């Protein structure tokens, strides 16, 4: 089975591209870790442990949602890189990193897209790995990124809430 189709009627390619670029930039600046986008299929396995966040993307002509799901291995690696010391526990601070990253990605995207898209201020919410998005759902746009340690799934949900 191939990659899920992008259905981006109102939610333009520009927004999706900007979100992806912002994600890669944010991770690289904050942690020094370089993410690479890799192909995704409906058979792409869900990591054993993951932490996530969602943030509303409410603009002048859309009301969607950005979801970030980060594998446990990658979240520990990112936090270790940011602090400059090895982190091995899934502490409250570690589990909150997807929230901060969503906040930063949103901020960068907002700066690049406004005022044309009228993106309104929003606050991220934490997600557990139980709500790992369904990759076969074509109403969503999914992108998978990997680093040397672990993976990250970015999903853009059109008009829906997890």
């Amino acid at each position: 089975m191939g990659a899920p189709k992008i259905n981006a009627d109102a939610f333009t390619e520009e927004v999706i591209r900007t979100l992806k670029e912002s994600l890669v930039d944010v991770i690289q600046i904050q942690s020094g870790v370089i993410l690479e986008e890799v192909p995704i299929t409906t058979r792409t396995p869900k990591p054993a442990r993951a932490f996530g966040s969602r943030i509303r993307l409410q603009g002048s002509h859309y009301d969607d949602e950005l979801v970030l799901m980060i594998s446990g291995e990658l979240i520990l690696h990112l936090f270790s890189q940011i602090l400059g010391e090895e982190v091995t526990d899934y502490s409250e601070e570690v589990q909150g990193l997807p929230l901060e990253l969503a906040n930063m990605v949103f901020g960068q995207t907002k700066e690049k897209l406004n005022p044309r898209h009228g993106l309104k201020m929003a606050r991220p919410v934490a997600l557990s790995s139980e709500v790992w998005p369904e990759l076969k759902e074509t109403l969503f746009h999914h992108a998978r990124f990997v680093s040397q340690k672990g993976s990250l799934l970015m999903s853009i949900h059109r008009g829906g809430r997890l």
Partner: protein
Amino acid sequence: MFPPKTRVLVIDDMSTMRAIVSKMCREIGLTDVTTAVDGEDAWITLTEAKVPFDLIISDWNMPKISGLELLKKVKSDPRFAHLPFIMVTAESEKSQILEALKAGVDQYLMKPFNRDMFVNKMGTLVRKIKKVS
């Protein structure tokens, strides 16, 4: 960079960013760091402190009292108006930056930031304080 025993108040509603900023402070010798979980908590911490603070590093987007509201309170209170105030935010719209500048913010730190960016921003603040004094 800063005098020894400089007391720092770090405010962020997210524990992750409190941990990151506190760690970066310690790395540049600011070892006396107190944290607050939002603007309201920060105001109580400031007003009840037995030993006064020397520097405030605050997030913008917080519940109860936002970073901007806290900045206005701090800068309009003669007890705290002299305190250097660094605003940390993922928002970079010009109107917001102007609003913070108008309210008296001393430095603006954009998220994301790494250790080098943090050190540079603190260095700029120190030079600014020295110039003024």
